């Protein structure tokens, strides 16, 4: 029978994960304010413009606003505040 070896695990220690609930859904988007958040990753701005155009054509009852994040990968407290205050829902993108 082949000899058995005992070796150490090479992995580091991961932080624990605590469950988070996602935000409640809307019953309808009609009449709501939807923020389209451009995260400033490659090509996102043009995508959000097209997304806004789609809503204008197909769901004009939805009030859309495109907002541009100040820098990719960094917090933007001003944009966050505006979204919190005025948005009923948001679409963010486009990222990895």
């Amino acid at each position, binding site marked *: 029978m082949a000899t058995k*070896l005992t070796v150490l695990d090479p992995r*580091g*220690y991961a932080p624990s*994960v605590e469950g988070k*609930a996602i935000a409640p859904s809307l019953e309808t988007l009609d009449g709501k304010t939807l923020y389209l958040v451009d995260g400033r990753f490659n090509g996102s701005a043009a995508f959000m413009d097209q997304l806004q155009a789609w809503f204008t054509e197909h769901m004009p009852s939805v009030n859309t606003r495109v907002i541009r994040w100040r820098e990719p990968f960094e917090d933007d407290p001003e944009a966050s505040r505006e979204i919190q205050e005025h948005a009923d829902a948001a679409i963010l993108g*486009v990222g*990895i």
Partner: protein
Amino acid sequence: MPSVGVHMSVFARLAESDARVRGVSRMRRAFVPGTLADRSATELRAFIEGDDPVSGRPFMEGVLAELTRPLDEEDLRGLTFERSTPRLLPPDTEENLRRLFEENRWTDFLPVVLPTEERVEAMLAGTSHAPDEVVGRLRPTWMRELWEFTVEKVAVNAVMAGARPEYFPVILALAASGITARQSSTSSIATGVVVNGPIRQEIGMNCATGAMGPYNHANATIGRAYGLLSQNLQGGSVPGETFVGSLGNNFTYNNVTFAENEEASPWEPLHVRHGFAADQSAVTPIWPIWNYVVTWGVRPTWREKLLDMVAAHDPHGGLVLILDPSAARLLAEREGFATTESLVDWIAENATKRAGQWWDHFTSELFVRPLADQGVEPWATRAQAHPDERFTTFQREDIEVVVVGGETNAAIAAASGRRSVTLSVDDWR
């Protein structure tokens, strides 16, 4: 409020994994089939009006459904779990352990030295620090969670790389840097390593002929250890999940690890220029190493050639000039660059790009355009430049000079890369 994240479909696994480790069971998300850069309005509209390649349903149908779907208990509970890492793996045969290590992606797909308790204990003798001391934390990218690790965990990976105990202080310093050698960037980043000070001779590193190649045990295994500890201590480096480099980068096999040839250099060594005494030992990670070009000889047109070489560089990746000692001495004694600072100044002033091209880099658009929009100088002014106006490619502080090699050829090499920190090796003895 309800929010839907839109991702590229190639990152579906990453999005899933990221949501899980943030404790969210079913993140609201939708996917588009490809990259967005350089797409026409028609192509982008086709993404929106087409199908989500991950769910298979129409993209907009999915987006709207996510914002209005009733939530269930799983959505409200989220995911809670521990991820404990045992100290020891269940005993098994050597063959089975090798297969386990490879299947778990704990290796670089080359054979490793299995980290038995005896081997790890021997490695730990290379430092005075306690095995259970926390060395630091690493992550594949700043958007991911930080994983923590101890001296013993670093020792495990050092053993796997084939390193010797006398190399361990260098490896610990690299682990403590907080800079991973397995960065997850779509651009495929490599991290190089420059070692300075007496430790080079103590452990037999090569700073001369072939120093940047596979010709020295210390150079080879320290670099390999840096890679293995990075991927294993940070939570992994798995393509599509914790590694998204589109091409990958061959420099990451050994992480371009070498000792500076301080003795043959006409200038102060790297670590002395950054606050260390000559008799102190230090290590400097340099990243992002994307590209490397070389010419030979300080010939009459060397200035023109060097500027041609760096013209191919991304303006935001920094620049490391890697000089054979014979080239360095010619630059210092014949060409008048008495200090590395004077050489850096010359490059900073003379390496220029056309504004139209400078702004056309992916990195310029991603990292600098937002600063220009906020009025930060010099970017705000540069954003107004005519496309044919020329301005300097690099910021002065992003250029570094290192001397290495055995004087068989007066090589002048230019690699991308930036020095972010130089760390004490002596602290980890």
